[in-house]
């Protein structure tokens, strides 16, 4: 196994007026760094389309992940899908991205817009082989993965965006390539790249999409560890032990909390340097400490990070704030959501006597909930998260 890993992020917008999305993305991740991602687009829109695409993506991802050849998967889907009473066909297009050991990718495409691959910042036209299964024309490709590869899979709602409204023939694949190429070097996460593309589609549809549109982005990147320290240990005698374990970890180091950062400063024998620059933020300012990458205040900052994490997992609209702002919460969000693939939390369980004031909205349970909720969110983002309590 190499030190590459995949950052997978997807998002959909629904056909105007529909509660359900007719596109569906299903991912199956395996321990050896393999993953199967299926983006299916069911015929029509609404409930019927949603059932077709959910079944298709679930069947294909489960079967491929257990090593069953693609021909059998397609045959199973064809036999399982309910036939649409209006149109007399059972139909769902799909795209499969099958990552193998983080070394290779197998792409299988059936009637969705062709997957876009950016390699070294440029569109890369990968070879495709035609495959005929039950009179269905599929394209398969197998490629070696390279660091910084970005794969973008879409449903046809993306390339149809704007047809007859803002554009005559919709947004062609070439236009999408041109549009997304500009974001290659920024370092946005897969989820954010998907959001950027979909936001543009939504704009072209003038906010009222004529079809379900889905984007699934996969970024191949190197593993990176970020360690986060939050709160002093329950027993003050454990300070040195906690600090020694924290600072011995490879990767970046974030320290959250006033008392916690003083303990860290004492351990390192360095001075904390505070800045009083609030900017336009209502988050307490950060501090600098030689030996740590970021020092922030505790609960208020981490509460904000948790808000950003929850939003990232749903609509992902607040990346427009945290992806560039300089306040502590935005900086933590960038380090945890964008930079990190592996995260070690060092959570101290000390009860801060200063917080035992009924006038203050901070309690011990809030602090403990914050850390566990944040860890859960980060796991849902596909990160390896380890939590140690002291």
């Amino acid at each position, binding site marked *: 196994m190499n030190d590459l890993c995949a950052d997978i992020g997807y998002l959909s917008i629904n056909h105007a007026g529909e509660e359900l999305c007719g596109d569906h993305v299903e991912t199956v991740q395996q321990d050896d760094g393999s993953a199967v991602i299926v983006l299916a687009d069911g015929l029509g829109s609404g409930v019927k389309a949603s059932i077709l695409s959910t079944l298709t993506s679930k069947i294909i991802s489960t079967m491929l992940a257990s090593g069953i050849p693609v021909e059998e998967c397609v045959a199973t889907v064809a036999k399982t899908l309910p036939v649409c009473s209006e149109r007399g066909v059972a139909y769902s297009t799909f795209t499969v991205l099958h990552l193998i050991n983080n070394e290779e990718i197998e792409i299988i495409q059936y009637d969705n817009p062709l997957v876009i691959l950016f390699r070294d910042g440029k569109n890369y036209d990968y070879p495709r082989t035609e495959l005929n299964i039950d009179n269905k024309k599929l394209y398969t490709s197998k490629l070696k993965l390279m660091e910084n590869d970005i794969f973008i899979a879409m449903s046809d709602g993306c390339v149809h965006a704007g047809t007859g409204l803002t554009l005559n023939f919709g947004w062609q694949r070439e236009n999408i390539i041109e549009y997304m190429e500009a974001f290659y070097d920024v370092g946005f996460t897969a989820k954010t790249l998907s959001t950027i593309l979909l936001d543009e589609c939504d704009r072209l549809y003038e906010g009222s999409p004529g079809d379900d549109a889905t984007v699934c982005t996969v970024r191949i990147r190197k593993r990176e560890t970020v360690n986060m320290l939050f709160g002093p240990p329950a027993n003050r005698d454990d300070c040195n032990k906690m600090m020694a374990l924290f600072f011995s970890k490879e990767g970046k180091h974030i320290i959250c909390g006033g008392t916690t950062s*003083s303990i860290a400063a004492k351990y390192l024998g360095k001075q*904390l340097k505070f800045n009083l620059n609030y900017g336009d933020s209502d988050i307490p300012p950060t501090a600098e400490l030689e030996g740590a990458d970021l020092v922030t205040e505790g609960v208020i900052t981490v509460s904000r990070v948790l808000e950003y994490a929850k939003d990232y997992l749903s609509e992902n609209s607040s990346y427009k704030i945290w992806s560039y702002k300089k306040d502590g919460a935005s900086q933590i969000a960038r380090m945890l959501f964008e930079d990190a693939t592996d995260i070690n939390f060092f959570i101290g369980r000390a009860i801060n006597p200063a917080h035992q004031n009924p006038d203050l909205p901070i309690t011990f349970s809030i602090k403990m909930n914050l850390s566990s909720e944040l860890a859960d969110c980060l796991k849902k983002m596909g990160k390896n998260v380890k939590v140690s309590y002291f």
Partner: protein
Amino acid sequence: MKITVCIGSSCHLKGSKAVVGELQQLIAENNLKDKIELAGTFCMGRCQEGVCVTVDDKFYSVSPETTKEFFLNDVMPKVK
């Protein structure tokens, strides 16, 4: 002279941002930038009395409403 304002959680909630902002303004208005160093710190351990402020090593409890008064009564006389 060094004025240190706590920017920890409790004091933040009690308005240290406003205190810092007002002090910055007062220092600028009185042309005291080379005489007063304004700094931040995390928790001083006296959150009940926040916003916690120290002038050199002397402790003061300040709120956004009393910042101007604190500056005129406790800071200005010492500068001159």
